[in-house]
Structure formats: structure tokens, C-alpha cells
């Protein structure tokens, strides 16, 4: 994968934190600049050519996103700020009538806070309950337990496609099938899947799918919510403002059609355009090639890390992609992070916005490495060297 030349920042750092946010290829950065220098105007409003051009480019990205995740209609693609906002949008809109007092929402034990707290907020408000889908010690969903959690009160399943801590690729197609047998819709948190796997929402048959531009080589400030037409039509509008209305009067306001009903106010135009270029870039490399590349890195890194005594890896599913979280003896991840940083290696240390998962494995924090298209075997070598320094500093030698 010969892409490092596209990421000038990598000359200065060994970046193993793509799970937090990816670096951006030059073409994405340039596209944002070009937009502001040549095409900048507000969209959906101006009758002049500049605004029409900006609108066209903006709406073209909706098409690109649709194709990228294999959705059926571009009006099913809603632009948000990120995965977090996408999930909040669904939780909030469904709490108006679909989810009611005493209803139950199923989420898994490996969710990111973004797929926990929005449901807690609405559950508390309307008096609904959250039930947790348990996971095994290997870090996999317990499918049988999942099946048994459904009751007549179950109104929603929200589950991550890929765990940001364990790397597990969940059997969401199967889970969606089970949920639909019980007439329950499913929201999939795809933040850690879209950058690494070819995603097909039509084949998955999910009802909602959420992800972030900044984790897939695009700019910050943009996320996507895919929603099935039937759900989006049923849902009340999300926020009020310009663009999402058809007609406004003080007596009666009518709402715009999909997807605009859910997009109030001026969106992050330049960064949506940047996302379009990121998608082009990923398509050019090919999602299949990306998956393979990262699987290879995962295998090598896992093997090397396992040679380190007292290093414990969390998440050992067969279906796993480019994330490894671990603890090292009693050395706190924060100290590991500092020492690696001193060696110019960026890793993540902490609870990874998944405190309940930390509790599940009974550790206060973990160190995490996560791969992107630009990582190499050399990065892994450097990591291993860095971990040796950690040991040295803490007076232990790796044999």
C-alpha cells in the first residue's frame, strides 16, 4: 500500500491512533482549500451560479456516500456532525412516539459512550429501560443471550459494527435478522467499520447506520446517518431552522422532504466536500485492499505483542480488524502512552470512551493501537522497540 506520500504529517510521527481520528490525504486537504478559493457560497438558497455550483458539489457527495455504503436512495443519507450526533438524532426522534415508557432498548456491553449515553438520556426522560447484550471473554457478542433478551417491550437495538477497543467485527447481519424477527429496528454504529470494510447497508438490512468522516480520512465536523425511508418518513423533524422547512408561518409550519427535514441550518459545506474526496480516495485504493492490508498488520502486530511477557491483549475474536488493546503488567497505560510519545509513537491510553467495557474486563484503562491504510510493518517494529523502553524505564527487561 503505497500511500504514505499522500500524508505529509507521517514524516514526523509514528501514528497508531487512527481509531481516534485518521490523518487526511493531501487531496482532501487541497479540496477544502480549493472550495474556499473558488466555490464558496451558501447552498440550497442562492439563485446565482456560485451558489448553484456549491449546492451541486454538496449534493454530489450525498450520491457518493449513498454509493459507498450501497444505500438505495440518496435521500436516505443525512449529514450530521458525526457518529455521535447521528445516534442522538435517532434516539431523540424515536423517543417522540416509537419508544415509550417501560419499553426496552438493547445495547451491547462493548458500546462506545456515543451509543450508550444518547439512549440513557432518552430512557431516563421517558422512563424506558436499557438492557445490555453480554459479551464473552474473547470479546464477542453472546448471540444466544441476545436472542433471549427480546420481549414484547423491546423497541430498539443499538449495536456497534466494529468495537473501537476489541476490534471485534460483530455478526450484525445475523443480529439484524433476529431483531427483525422480533419486529425491532436496529441502529448500527459504523464509526469503526466504514474506514476498514466495504459496508453494504442494503444487504445488512439495518434500519439506521451511523459513521464519522474524520475517522475515514475525511475532515472533522461531518458525519452521516443512513436511515431507511420508511423510518425517516415516520420520524418527526429533529431540529428547526432554515432548509428543513417547506413553509413557515406563526400558525403552521410544514417540513421539507427527505433528507432536508433532518438538516436544519447551514451545514458544514466545505467539509462535506472534503468527505467526497476522501471517498474517491478510498475507492481508488479499494476497500478490499484496505481490509487485507490492515488484517496483515493485525496478524503481525498480534504475534509480536504476544511475545512480550505480561502483555495481555483484550479482544481475541476470530472476526477482528485493525485494533489491539492491551495492558502491560501493572504499568499504567497513561505511563506507557507518555513513554511511547517520547519515542514519537502516538497510541491511545485510557478508557477509550467505553467505561462499561473496562468494567467488564475489570481494568481501569488500556493501551490501544489502531491501524490505518498508511501504517507499515516498520511502525510495528518501532512500537515493539518503544515497549522495550517502557520496560527499561520501569526496570524490567523484555527477554
Amino acid at each position, binding site marked *: 500500500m503505497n500511500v504514505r506520500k499522500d500524508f505529509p504529517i507521517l514524516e514526523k510521527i509514528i501514528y497508531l491512533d487512527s481509531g481516534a481520528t485518521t490523518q487526511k490525504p493531501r487531496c482532501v486537504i487541497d479540496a477544502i482549500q480549493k472550495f474556499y478559493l473558488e466555490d464558496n457560497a451558501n447552498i440550497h438558497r442562492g439563485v446565482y451560479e456560485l451558489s448553484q455550483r456549491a449546492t451541486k458539489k454538496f449534493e454530489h457527495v450525498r450520491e457518493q456516500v449513498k454509493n459507498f455504503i450501497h444505500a438505495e436512495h440518496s435521500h436516505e443519507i443525512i449529514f450530521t456532525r458525526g457518529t455521535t450526533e447521528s445516534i442522538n438524532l435517532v434516539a431523540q426522534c424515536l423517543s417522540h412516539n416509537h419508544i415509550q415508557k417501560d419499553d426496552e432498548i438493547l445495547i451491547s456491553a462493548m458500546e462506545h459512550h456515543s451509543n450508550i449515553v444518547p439512549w440513557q438520556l432518552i430512557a431516563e426522560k421517558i422512563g424506558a429501560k436499557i438492557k445490555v447484550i453480554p459479551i464473552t471473554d474473547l470479546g464477542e457478542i453472546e448471540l444466544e443471550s441476545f436472542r433471549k433478551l427480546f420481549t414484547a417491550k423491546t423497541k430498539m437495538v443499538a449495536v456497534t459494527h466494529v468495537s473501537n477497543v476489541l476490534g471485534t467485527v460483530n455478526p450484525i447481519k445475523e443480529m439484524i435478522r433476529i431483531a427483525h424477527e422480533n419486529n425491532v429496528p436496529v441502529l448500527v454504529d459504523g464509526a469503526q467499520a466504514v474506514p476498514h470494510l466495504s459496508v453494504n447497508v442494503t444487504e445488512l438490512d439495518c434500519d439506521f447506520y451511523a459513521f464519522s468522516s474524520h475517522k475515514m480520512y475525511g475532515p472533522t465536523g461531518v458525519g452521516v446517518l443512513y436511515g431507511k425511508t420508511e423510518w425517516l418518513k415516520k420520524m418527526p423533524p429533529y431540529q428547526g431552522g432554515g432548509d428543513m422547512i417547506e413553509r413557515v408561518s406563526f400558525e403552521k409550519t410544514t417540513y421539507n422532504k427527505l433528507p432536508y427535514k433532518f438538516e436544519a441550518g447551514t451545514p458544514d459545506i466545505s467539509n462535506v466536500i472534503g468527505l467526497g474526496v476522501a471517498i474517491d480516495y478510498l475507492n481508488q485504493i479499494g476497500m478490499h485492499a484496505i481490509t487485507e492490508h490492515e488484517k496483515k498488520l493485525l496478524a503481525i502486530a498480534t504475534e509480536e505483542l504476544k511475545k512480550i511477557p505480561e502483555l495481555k491483549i483484550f479482544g481475541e475474536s476470530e472476526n477482528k480488524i485493525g485494533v489491539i488493546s492491551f495492558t502491560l503488567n*501493572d*504499568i*499504567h*497505560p*497513561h*505511563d506507557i502512552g*507518555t*513513554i511511547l*510519545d*517520547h519515542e514519537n509513537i502516538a497510541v491511545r*491510553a*485510557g*478508557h477509550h470512551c467505553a467505561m462499561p467495557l*473496562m468494567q467488564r474486563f475489570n481494568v*481501569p*484503562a488500556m493501551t490501544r493501537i489502531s491501524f490505518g491504510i498508511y501504517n507499515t510493518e516498520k511502525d510495528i517494529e518501532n512500537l515493539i522497540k518503544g515497549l522495550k*523502553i517502557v520496560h527499561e*524505564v*520501569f*526496570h524490567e527487561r523484555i527477554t
Partner: protein
Amino acid sequence: MNELRELYQEMIIEHGRHPRNFCVLENASCKQEGFNPLCGDHLILFLIEKNGVIENISFQGSGCAISMASASLMTDAVKNKSIKEAEKLFQQFHLLITENKSEENLGKLAVLAGVSEFPARVKCATLAWHTLKAALQNETQTVSTE
């Protein structure tokens, strides 16, 4: 490597692994929680204060070597000191770990001087101190250095 050795001195690693005053004080006059959401460092401070003097102090919790060592060293340092003295010590300590300046002899606390080269770790080194300050001001909320 030198800066790292400066930061992770023997004494810090040793205090981090075997912190002093690491226990519950049953008859504490004050109990205060401190938390750093970024890395999950967490501690509870127990305090017996009488007539403006810290008669006894202890803590429990978990966190990185820096935060545990700092809590351990702090509890040793402020025991039997007046509140005024403790506050002054914090000021001096803060100067040390942010600007590597020390105007006074800080005793063992001086081993944390290496933190000044690692601005990201200042929060770890001050968690215990901020918690102490809150305890002395009788705050009720969990202290957070985030």
C-alpha cells in the same frame, strides 16, 4: 531517554507501586473524591483537620505512576502542616512542575520536577493537590482535572 529517566525516577516508580498513606482513615473529618476523566486516574482523600492543621491524611485510588506517586508524596509532605503551609506548598509545587522553578526546598516533592518537560502530565501530578484544596474548601463535588 534522559527526559524519561528524569520523569520516571526510581523514587517515583517506587512510590507509584507502593504508595505511602494508602489506606482509609476511619475517623476522617473530611473525605474528598478526585477524578481525571482523560486517563481514569481516581482517588479518595481522607483528612483529619483540627484548628487549621492537617493532623492526618491518607488516600486510596488507582492511576498512573505519576498520579499515585504524587499523592503518596503529597500526603507525606502535608501531614502535620497548617492549611496555610499546605497551600503555599501547592503553589511552590505547581511552579516546579510547570516551569521547573523552585524557590524553596521542596524536599522529596522535588523528584517530580521532570513533569515540567511533559505538560500533558501536569494534570496527573496535581490531581491529589487539587483534591486536597477542594477538601480544605469543603467542596462536595468530585474534583476533576480534565
